[in-house]
């Protein structure tokens, strides 16, 4: 793999240049302290202000950048009396500073939205994307990150266009695709050639980063167990009783793709929108007749775990859990995927 180098002090200039051609999403720490993937504004003054907040440290980014492709709320089409007006084609997106686990989540969603029927809204946003990942030297959510167990981090082996490796004053840059290579060439002044010994340096940084991930679970065993015959009714009933059905885990999950559809109309004009929805909500499966096949709490809990660890895996070969740990950190009652995996692989009660 070709290795390039960019000085940390040149990152803002790189983003400044990129913002001209791309719709750039990057982790920005807001005044309130949360770091969120933010679309960089095109207008110069606003862009400079946003660039002040760029944060590529091992920060806990609250939500993965999935909403660049699958917004929490989006217009599907507009209508005026009886005329339907489709939404315009989106501009191409650059996801800068995406964490390896979140990048895996995006790759997972790419496949999901392509399968069977193609989802125009997601795919038209995602087809020309460029993903510049940044590996984690230390886990951003130390008590919850378990990427080494699921092999989704702390660095990617493939799937990225570029991957940044933090080497102190500069990032060493791995090129993972032709698109990545083109991007480097387009900004050749900022990307320098790496030194001979720096490939070794990358290896060392990566192995040290992997050692820094403390939380470990037997992920492979969990997938095997879920694939086979099992009965976790007791776990689902207990976790189902503990859960308060706030849906926080679904909103922060990089691979949750469910949505609801709703219309809004004023006079003759209106819009059909979709917004994120989730399987833990009671109304999610309720039919107009009042019949609800998943009225029972434990069935909704079952759905959540089996979907992520069983059905996604059997349907795509990829697990629906990418081990980011956000479900655990967002949960007011401390339920999390890593804990569930520990329960089913060790038999210990964790929740």
């Amino acid at each position, binding site marked *: 793999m070709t290795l390039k180098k960019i000085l940390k002090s040149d990152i803002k200039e790189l983003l400044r240049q990129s913002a001209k051609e791309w719709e750039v999403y990057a982790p920005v720490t807001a005044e309130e302290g949360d770091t969120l993937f933010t679309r960089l504004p095109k207008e110069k003054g606003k862009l400079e202000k946003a660039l002040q907040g760029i944060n590529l440290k091992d920060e806990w980014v609250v939500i993965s950048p999935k909403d660049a492709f699958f917004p929490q709320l989006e217009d*599907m*089409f507009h*209508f005026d009396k*009886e005329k*339907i007006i*489709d939404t315009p084609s989106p501009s191409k997106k650059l996801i800068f500073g995406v964490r390896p686990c979140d990048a895996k989540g995006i790759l997972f969603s790419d496949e999901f*939205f392509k*399968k*069977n*029927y*193609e*989802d*125009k*809204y997601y*795919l*038209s946003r995602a087809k020309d994307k460029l993903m510049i990942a940044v590996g984690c030297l230390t886990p951003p959510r130390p008590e919850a990150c378990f990427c080494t167990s699921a092999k989704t981090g702390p660095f990617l082996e493939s799937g990225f266009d570029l991957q940044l490796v933090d080497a102190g004053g500069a990032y060493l840059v791995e090129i993972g695709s032709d698109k990545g290579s083109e991007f480097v060439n387009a900004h050749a002044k900022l990307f320098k050639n790496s030194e001979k010994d720096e490939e070794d340096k990358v290896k060392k940084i990566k192995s040290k980063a992997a050692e820094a991930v403390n939380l470990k679970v037997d992920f492979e065993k969990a997938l095997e167990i879920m694939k086979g015959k099992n009965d976790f009714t007791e776990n689902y009933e207990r976790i189902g009783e503990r859960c308060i059905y706030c849906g926080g885990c679904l909103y922060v999950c990089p691979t949750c*793709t*469910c*949505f*609801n*559809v*709703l*219309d*809004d*109309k004023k006079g003759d004009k*209106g819009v*059909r929108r*979709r917004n994120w*929805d989730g*399987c833990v909500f009671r109304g*999610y*499966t*309720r*039919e*107009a*007749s009042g*019949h609800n*096949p*998943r009225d029972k709490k434990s*069935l909704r809990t*079952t*759905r959540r775990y*089996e*979907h992520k660890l*069983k*059905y996604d895996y*059997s*349907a795509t070969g990829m697990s629906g859990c990418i081990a980011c740990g956000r479900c655990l950190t967002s949960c007011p009652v401390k339920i999390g995927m890593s804990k569930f995996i520990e329960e089913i692989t060790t038999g210990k009660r964790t929740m």
Partner: protein
Amino acid sequence: MKNDYLPHKAKITSIQKESFDTNTYKVVFDDKKIKDTFDYKQGQFAEISVLGVGEAPISITSSPTRKGFLEFSIRNTGKVTRAIHDLKVNDPLFVRGPYGNSFPYDELKGKNLYFIAGGIGLPPLRSLINMVMDNRKEFGHVKILYGAKTPDEVCFKKELEEWKNIPNTEVWLTVDKPCDGWGCSVGVVTELWKETNVHPENAVAILCGPPIMIKFVIARLAESGFKDIDIVMTLERYMKCGIGKCGHCNIGEKFVCIDGPVFTYNQVKAFPTKEHAF
């Protein structure tokens, strides 16, 4: 890129009152190209919109053997169906589809067929029933066993009479609460087993109805000797997109909207969930 979420404009050309809360809407697409290319199969459904109110999955109740229009038999139940019931002839209705798999057809040829329905469960079977009636000689004996809560709720009264008069075809009705002058059976649909023979030889049973009805009918069919594979049903689930994306209708790794809505009982039995009453 093609956008599968955009519905096509159609016009309501007639409205037939079927029961106190159910109407059949006949619709024709405005765009001739859509009208000519909208090929559907028996048992498929469409997503129907009233713009500004919403969209709902509705089974296509017309038979694919009858071309140029679509029919939807819709009960006034939720927000969207209520808005549809406010529409009049010549009003627009927005339709996309067809979606889902279909009832077997060639596999049913030469077989005796039992259509067993409860309440609003008859409309999803109507497409196949009329397809069978249009090619009547290719099938064995046909019995339609239909249960409703009240005589007012019985759909397709006129068609039930027509079907009854077709040779080798029987229609058996029952209601939970009869009214004066009700000449048919009283009780749930399985009560009809007392009235007529339900025999598994060279037969397939095709069901649609509320879960509780399906549960008892399946038990009764099993007692009568039907094999799981000879029990076919169309399942109802909350569906928002119809194309396997929104997630609402998932059962295990299947989506009712693309892998169903038609399943055999042995497929339903293999569902890895405890979500079903049957």
